[in-house]
């Protein structure tokens, strides 16, 4: 029988990452969609970097930054008692950066795709920008929100490089499924590797399928 620890850890990591990422990404995507700042291209580039950068590069720099031997890592440990390398919180931060574009890009394009008259109409009706965002704009980009949430979740489930670099391979703390698979293969335990892989394969398939079903309106047709 396989060890369920990595699977539970992976689910927990993906869930925590997705929730915090959503909270961070909505204001960031809003800013990117509507700002006219000169800094915008730079921020946009930084947000999208994880799409093309090898996860090991990201992991390496995070490892350097978080290491207590380094001034930033030492400061974190001294002031907040946070040790981000080889810990769950470090994994969450790493995954957030790694999955940032998957959450921000759909929300940003959803927001900029809305006609500007919608928010203008709301302002003229005396509603604040915050109220307009939550009551007018976000409810109209539900498909984009769902896409962002699901992609970020699925992407976190499947990550390997970043986790290996800053998390290592500590059972119950940082050993996620993708690393467990690697371990089992190294130990020539192909049957266990296959079980883990199959579980990831199915989760990803089901998750993505449900997004396309919901966003394509297929489910509505069945319900009606």
């Amino acid at each position, binding site marked *: 029988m396989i060890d369920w620890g990595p699977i539970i850890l992976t689910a927990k990591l993906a869930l925590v990452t997705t929730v915090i990422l959503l909270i961070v990404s909505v204001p960031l995507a809003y800013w990117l969609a509507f700002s006219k700042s000169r800094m915008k291209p730079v921020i946009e580039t930084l947000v999208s970097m994880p799409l093309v950068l090898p996860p090991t590069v990201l992991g390496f720099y995070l490892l350097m930054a978080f290491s207590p031997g380094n001034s930033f890592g030492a400061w974190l440990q001294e002031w907040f008692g946070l040790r981000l390398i080889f810990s769950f919180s470090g994994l969450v931060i790493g995954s957030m950066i790694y999955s940032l574009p998957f959450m921000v890009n759909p929300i940003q394009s959803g927001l900029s795709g809305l006609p500007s008259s919608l928010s*203008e109409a709301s*302002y*003229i*009706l005396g509603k604040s920008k915050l109220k307009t965002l939550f009551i007018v704009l976000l409810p*109209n980009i539900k498909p984009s929100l769902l896409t962002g949430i699901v992609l970020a979740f699925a992407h976190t489930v499947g990550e390997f490089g970043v986790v290996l670099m800053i998390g290592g391979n500590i059972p119950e703390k940082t050993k996620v499924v993708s690393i467990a698979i690697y371990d089992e293969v190294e130990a020539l335990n192909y049957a266990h590797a296959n079980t883990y892989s199959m579980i990831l394969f199915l989760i990803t398939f089901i998750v993505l399928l449900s997004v396309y079903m919901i966003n394509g309106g297929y489910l509505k047709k069945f319900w009606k």
Partner: protein
Amino acid sequence: MIKATIHKTLRSAAGKMTLAIELDVKKGQFVTLYGPSGAGKTSTLRIIAGLLSPDKGSIMVNDSIWFDKERKINRIPQQRKIGYVFQDYALFPHMTVRKNLEFALDKKQDKAIVDELISIVELEELQDRKPETLSGGQQQRVALARALVQKPEVLLLDEPLSALDIRMRSKLQDYILKVHEKYHLTTILVSHDIGEIIKMSDVVYKLQDGGVEKVGKPMTVFASNQLSGKFQFVGEVIDITKEDVIYIVTVLIGQNVVKVVAQEQEIVNLAIGDKVIVASKAFNPVLQKIEV
């Protein structure tokens, strides 16, 4: 009521244009901004609403300052208390008709106004429907009602009727006039349709390349020389043909096609697509009821 001096450099597809406009609108007036595309009509409306900031100038409404470049005053749209109907209606797609109107309510405002407006624009049957299931004319009525929920004194209409067919248009013009009267509004309408302007407005501003070319009563502005015609209609030239020494001009008035005989000097400046006034004097028209 509204006194505005507006200067703004606009960049459009056609290049740079300077908008330089003075408006003086009295309380209760129905004013129309007329002019070709790109003349600055919509920009003027957006500036009054606070959706666009002028480079120079001032906007005074009822002795309160909405914009003054020199004194660095620029009220945000939320603080201007106006009603605005967008060209695309800008109804919130995820809310029903009633929810769209209720969203517009001020914090402590009585909900009764929502029912009142729904009944004025005759939307009782449709109030639980989402905007996407409504026709253009129905959406238009929702947008009009929503703009009036907060009981603004100024109503701004940005070509609200341009996407509708003639019959629908005429009906909606009546709705707009009805609420204009009932709520003692001061209304500024952007319109391309001369017939509509003559029917609805007290004053028309004819805009051209960012400036005001003419201001006045619609009949004075649109008829180049004053006619004392008993009978006159606005139409569009759809054909000009030569017959021996005279010309036959075919004019579309509403949905009717009329042929008018013209002399050569009359058609010199006429081209297909021009708006014309067809007038006749010194004759006695006969009225006959049509049995439907």
